[in-house]
């Protein structure tokens, strides 16, 4: 029952979920950076995610790379369809990446403000676009029988996808604020707690609205999936983690709250993937023209070779990720070598 195509659907899913959970919080911190009160808060923000953000972004690269190798038709279709959006995303990620390095190179307030804005906007844009992209894929793209995209850039900015984009942004802000509660103290932590709680209630409400909107925008997703135990398991995990999250924050168990928000985000994406399966990109013109894990995949030989590579690479990536978080665990310490 589990064939190579299914395994690769799972692996690409794990990579993209890993990206959302890991880069999600540092994008959230970047958005919160726009609201930081003083220089000390801003430097704390940068140094809290400084050691880990680039490692987190690698998950997006590997997700894209795995998609290219395992499901080249999906890669070609989606990356062509989202061309301008992806260019915008790249621009944002470039500005965000250089602001880490450039900001501390001068004491001038104007210089620092410039890079604070580049960092904030460079985080805000990806945080929204991630959800917009996911919303468009889940809802289905206008694909003809050859899998060619017939839509336009502005067509990608439909109300449903924007709703998912805002949901993603709010969840990332919540995720980032919770991460910062582990990294700060005093006034800064209090303001992060306020952000986390505010984003939590907004996020929960938006998730309910988004679920209802999905019924109308992409009802086909619910056909059949409601009978699957996995769907209900993931849904139960989403509810349990989101309900326990504010309690954990109140009890000052910040790590537990962070685990809750990680599980919540991961399971929400898992739900979307379960509903899509075995489709990857539904066609909004005719469901029969959808790209699936079978009609869009590489040859079994390629999939098998890549699986061997993935089995060697994955433990290394997980190993260094754990190591870097271990090295930089605890609160932020600002010294002469900090950003």
């Amino acid at each position, binding site marked *: 029952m589990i064939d190579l195509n299914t395994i690769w659907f799972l692996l690409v899913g794990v990579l993209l979920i890993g990206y959302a959970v890991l880069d999600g919080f540092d994008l959230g911190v970047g958005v919160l950076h726009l609201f930081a009160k003083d220089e*000390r808060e801003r430097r*704390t923000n940068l140094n809290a995610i400084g050691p880990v953000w680039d490692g987190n972004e690698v998950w997006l690269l590997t997700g894209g790379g795995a998609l290219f190798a395992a499901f080249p038709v999906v890669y*070609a*279709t989606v990356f*062509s*369809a989202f*061309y*301008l959006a992806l*260019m915008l995303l*790249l*621009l944002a990620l*470039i500005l965000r990446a*250089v602001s880490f390095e*450039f900001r*501390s*190179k*001068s*004491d001038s307030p104007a210089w620092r403000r410039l890079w604070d804005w580049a960092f904030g906007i460079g985080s805000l844009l990806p945080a929204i676009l991630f959800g917009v992209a996911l919303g468009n894929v889940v809802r289905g793209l206008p694909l003809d029988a050859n899998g*060619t*995209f017939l839509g336009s850039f502005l067509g990608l900015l439909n109300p449903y996808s924007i709703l998912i984009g805002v949901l993603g942004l709010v969840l990332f802000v919540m995720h980032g604020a919770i991460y910062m509660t582990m990294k*700060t*103290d*005093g006034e*800064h932590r209090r303001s992060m707690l306020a952000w986390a709680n505010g984003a939590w209630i907004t996020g929960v409400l938006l998730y309910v609205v988004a679920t209802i909107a999905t019924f109308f925008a992409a009802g086909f997703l619910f056909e059949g999936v409601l009978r699957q135990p996995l769907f209900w398991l993931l849904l139960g995990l989403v509810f349990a983690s989101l309900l326990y999250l504010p309690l954990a924050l109140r009890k000052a168990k910040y790590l537990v709250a962070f685990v809750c928000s990680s599980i919540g985000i991961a399971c929400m994406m898992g739900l979307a993937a379960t509903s899509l399966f075995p489709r990857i990109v539904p066609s909004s013109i005719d469901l029969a023209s959808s790209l699936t894990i079978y009609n869009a995949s590489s040859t079994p030989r390629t999939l098998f070779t890549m699986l061997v590579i993935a089995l060697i690479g994955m433990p290394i990536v997980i190993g260094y990720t754990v190591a870097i978080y271990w090295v930089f665990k605890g*609160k*932020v*310490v*600002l*010294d*002469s*070598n*900090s950003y």
Partner: protein
Amino acid sequence: MVLLGMFFIFIMLVGFIQARRQKLWTSTGLLKVFVCAMPLPVIACQFGWVSAEVGRQPWIVYHVMKTSDAISQTVSAGEILFSLILFSVIYLLLGSLYIFLFAREVNHGPEPAAAKGAFVPQPQPEVFA
């Protein structure tokens, strides 16, 4: 690219020999060559890239697929032009900033290890606990 690569190996070898003879810091001629060689790796990368791209034409995958058959049906020429201009501008800006900061660092000269934190307002580590 290959020629430049050989050149790098050669000057590194000369540098190594001079260092072993304790003469590296006094051989000004060699040090000047080192400074002038700094932009060359970037040029070598670009040359290598250009020769791979141009030398392969008209194939995009050698003897398998023509470049003209590989053009996207979805992405228009205007979109490509837009992204090309966008990234040219961004890289020009970032490149100029890089040269500006680089020149400033060089003009600043080397500093003693103790004064390393010159840009940082607080010299003492600050723990938020």
